[in-house]
Structure formats: structure tokens, C-alpha cells
């Protein structure tokens, strides 16, 4: 692999990894407050993609958009992705999980419900919008923005990387510096004591789902900008992002970021060196290897939380 190829692959991996990181935040935040592996989060991502595509199809982009129009289209797509992702996540929590919490259902029931909700959502979307991929309307001319070390970065790549970084910085701020964030962290550490401090657990849990859903929805739209959206598009990125959250240490926000970037880069290099058939082998081999030596993930807590 030449130096030039190396950079190309690294950029590819970083773009992919930044998307995984954004999706992984949704898994890790929800796991933090509920110890729930929310497998339906991949569908929040998928629905966000559809939200963006459908909104843009309705607003019918001009065939030759001006720079300002391009920005407006992207903004509309992101907005609809976010709103749809956030809404689905909100109702997912309210309809599927909250009744289980009320009844103190065992962990396994939550897990089965999550998988059921995932089946329900992607089949619903498949039924409503068809099982063939929907193309993303063209919003801009995908030209090269910059060239670094001879490798090019396209508008789409810059868009994904840029918005992912903004979202990651924002969510880090929310979790560590805002009142909602301190509520989220308190509930993750000791929900009973958090409520003694005046934290409304239901409210915090609901907002945690919405926060993860907004980001997952935007990620779905961004993923769609690389080509198209389809009803099962959540599955592989969802599983990979979930693996990323585990790799970084599930429950840990910065761990999810690190895990996402790592798996994206590993995936890109695996494909480059061994071919597309090996795409997920490299990433999951890394996951297995890391967990063998650090069962709680790269940034995971070494001490089990006390019940």
C-alpha cells in the first residue's frame, strides 16, 4: 500500500468511524441509564435516513443547485433525520420499555422487546415505503473539497466527518456540563439516590432516548448521502456501532467515540487489504481481541457497579 493509498483509506475509515461513533453514543447512553441493550436503536438510525430522503424528495431539489440551496437541502435532510430519529426513540421508550420498567420486568424481557421493536420498525418502514432502496436526491455536486497528502476529501466525506465531530463535541458537552447531563450520569450511577436528589428518572430516561435518537437520526441521513436508504440499512451499521460501544466500554460516552473511530478505520483497512468479503471480519476480530484482555472495554469501568 502506497503512502497515498494509506491516506485515502484512513480518510474513508475516519468518515465511516465517525458515523459509527455517533450511532454508538445512542447505545451507550441508554445502556448507562437503563442497563438496556437497545437493539432497536439501529431502526432509529434507519428511520432518520428515510426522514431525510423523504423530506428532500418532497422539497424537490433543483437539478443544478446553487451553493446556498445545497446548504439548505442538507440542513432540511439533517433536521428531518433528527426529528424522526428523536420521535421514534421517544415513543420507543414510552411504548415499549416504560411499561416493562413499571412492572420491574427482568433484563431478558427488555432484550426480547428491543429485538421485537426492531423487527416491527424495519418491517413497518418496508411496508410503507417499499423494500427497494430509495435514492438520496442529489443535493450538491460531490466535488473535492481539499486534498491532503495527495488524497482527496469529497463534499460528502467532509459533510459526514464535520457534522459527526460537531455532534460528538456537543453530546460530550451535554453529558459533562449541563444539568440534563448530570441527571443522566447520576441515574447511571445510582438511580435511587438520584431520585432522592430530585432527579425525575422517567424524564431523564426519556430525554436520554431522545438525545441518542436525534444523533442516530442525523447519522441515518448522513449515511444515506453516500448513496441510498433502505429498510434494513440499520442492521450492519447498528451492529457495528453496538460493537463500538462495547469496545470503548459500554456506558462510557468517550469510549463509544473511540470505539466507533477504531472500528471504522479497521474496517476500511481490512477491505483495502483483504477485500470486501472480509469487511466485518477485521473489526470484530479487534473487538474479540480487546475484550479478551479488557473485558470491560477500552475505557470501561473496571469495578462493577453496585446494585
Amino acid at each position: 500500500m502506497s503512502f497515498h493509498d494509506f491516506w485515502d483509506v484512513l480518510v474513508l475509515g475516519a468518515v465511516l468511524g465517525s458515523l459509527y461513533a455517533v450511532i454508538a453514543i445512542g447505545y451507550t447512553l441508554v445502556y448507562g441509564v437503563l442497563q438496556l441493550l437497545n437493539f432497536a436503536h439501529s431502526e432509529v438510525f434507519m428511520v432518520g435516513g428515510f426522514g431525510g430522503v423523504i423530506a428532500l424528495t418532497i422539497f424537490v431539489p433543483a437539478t443544478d443547485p446553487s451553493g446556498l440551496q445545497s446548504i439548505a437541502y442538507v440542513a432540511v435532510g439533517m433536521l428531518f433525520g433528527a426529528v424522526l430519529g428523536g420521535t421514534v426513540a421517544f415513543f420507543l421508550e414510552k411504548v415499549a420499555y416504560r411499561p416493562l420498567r413499571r412492572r420491574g420486568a427482568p433484563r431478558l424481557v427488555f432484550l426480547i422487546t428491543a429485538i421485537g421493536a426492531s423487527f416491527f420498525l424495519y418491517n413497518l418502514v418496508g411496508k410503507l415505503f417499499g423494500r427497494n432502496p430509495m435514492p438520496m436526491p442529489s443535493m450538491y455536486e460531490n466535488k473535492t473539497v481539499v486534498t491532503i497528502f495527495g488524497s482527496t476529501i469529497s463534499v460528502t466525506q467532509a459533510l459526514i466527518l464535520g457534522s459527526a465531530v460537531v455532534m460528538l463535541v456537543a453530546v460530550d458537552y451535554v453529558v459533562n456540563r449541563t444539568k440534563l447531563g448530570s441527571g443522566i450520569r447520576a441515574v447511571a450511577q445510582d438511580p435511587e439516590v438520584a431520585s432522592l436528589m430530585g432527579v425525575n428518572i422517567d424524564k431523564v430516561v426519556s430525554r436520554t432516548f431522545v438525545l441518542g435518537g436525534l444523533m442516530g437520526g442525523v447519522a441515518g441521513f448522513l449515511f444515506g448521502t453516500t448513496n441510498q436508504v433502505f429498510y434494513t440499512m440499520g442492521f450492519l451499521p447498528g451492529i457495528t456501532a453496538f460493537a463500538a460501544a462495547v469496545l470503548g466500554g459500554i456506558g462510557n460516552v468517550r469510549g463509544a467515540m473511540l470505539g466507533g473511530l477504531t472500528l471504522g478505520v479497521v474496517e476500511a483497512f481490512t477491505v483495502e487489504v483483504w477485500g470486501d468479503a472480509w469487511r466485518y471480519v477485521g473489526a470484530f476480530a479487534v473487538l474479540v481481541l480487546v475484550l479478551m484482555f479488557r473485558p470491560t472495554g477500552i475505557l470501561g469501568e473496571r469495578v462493577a457497579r453496585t446494585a
Partner: protein
Amino acid sequence: MSGPELDKNPGEQGTPLLELSGLRVFYGAIEALKGIDLTVGRGEAVALLGANGAGKSTTLKTVSGMLAPRHGEVRLHGERIDGIASHELVRFGLGHVPEGRRVFARMTVLENLNMGAYRFRRPDPDDLDRVFGLFPRLAERRKQIAGTLSGGEQQMLAIGRALMGKPELLLLDEPSMGLAPLIVEQIFDILREVNEQGTTLLLVEQNASEALQLANRGYVLETGEVVMSGPADTLLADPRIRAAYLGEHVEVD
């Protein structure tokens, strides 16, 4: 050492700050509290004593809304509060320092204190100064992760955190548990100061001697029932109490 003053006894005058009547609490089929009557007057310090499993923690958890009674009432300022969720009860001026301290181990000391003020828009800097005044050790360690503090420091933090919520009534569940005598002494001195500054205390303890030296009055629980109550010095002098809870410390007058 402050002895109980008869004129401070709340039962006789006005509405008590906290009043439990006929309180029965169940864990499934197990009846943990079998009809508790208890009052705490404004400004008082009341000790709740009893062996392991007597129902002391259950009583406090019922007051702060973590458990709901099947029968009986909890009144604060004369208003019924049983059935109100614990996150709403903090607004009624209730603070609860739980058994085993339970600080937020992955937050800093300062973040823990701010959590105590969660019910306010933002923490009151005067409260922070007050807590740091009571516990200078917390001020020195404000940036330290709470999980790395010693047991005594964690207890101070748990008390400071509760004070950040400006409680009128502070419930304390075994603040001396597992701490060295010197630290226990320090913590009780500070609790005395907190009480003198106007915060009412309901103190659960197995360390009957320390608790009764701080308290005006006391109750003794046994398997979910109040078996004895009265002014602290009466209890402290009672041979049954001395035998049961002050074991090694019995000194024959």
C-alpha cells in the same frame, strides 16, 4: 453534651414537623413495619435505634417516598406526603443521607455537592460555603473523584450533598457505620452544629451512645415495632438499652 429539654418535646405543642401514624410497610408478604407511630418536632434531633433488620431504614425510606406504606400516614408540616414520589419530596424540604453513604463514585466532590442542589436551577454558593465550612476536608478535595475518598470523607460528602438541597428535615441512616471512633466523633459534632443551625434531624443509628448524646429524644425499634421511646437521657440511663445497645460500654453507677 446537650441533654433533652422537656419544653422541646413536640408532642405537646402545635403540629410536629414529621408525624408517622400507624405506618405499616411490606416487602411483598413480609411486614417490615407493623404500625409505627413517631413524631419529630421542628428543630429537634430524634434518634431511631434498633438492631439490624428492625426496620430503621425501611422507616426512613418510607418517609422519603422510596417505599409506599400499605396502611398509615406520613405527614410533613401536617400535610400527607405518603404516596408522593421521592424526586418530588425534596421540594418539601426533605433530605435523606442513605445507608452506606452512596456518593456518586465517578463524580467529583463538587459534582456530588451540585447534585444535592439538583432541585434548584443552580446551586446556592452560600450553601456551598456552608458545607465547605462544616467540612473543610471536602473543600480541599473538591476536584477529587468521590470514589477515591476515604469512608469518613464519603460520609461527610453524603451529608454535605444532602445539605445542598436546603433540607428542613434531614434523615440520616447510620452515618457512623464502619467508621473509626475519631471520625464518628467529628461527624456527630458537625451534625450537632447542623442541628443548632436549625435543621431538624431524624437519626438512625446502631451506635446508641453517640446518637443519644446528640438527640433530644429517641425511639427503639424491634422487628418493625416501637418498643420504647422517651427523652434521650432517660433512654441512655435505661438498663435495657444499656444492655442491648451499649454492650461493652456498660458502666455501673
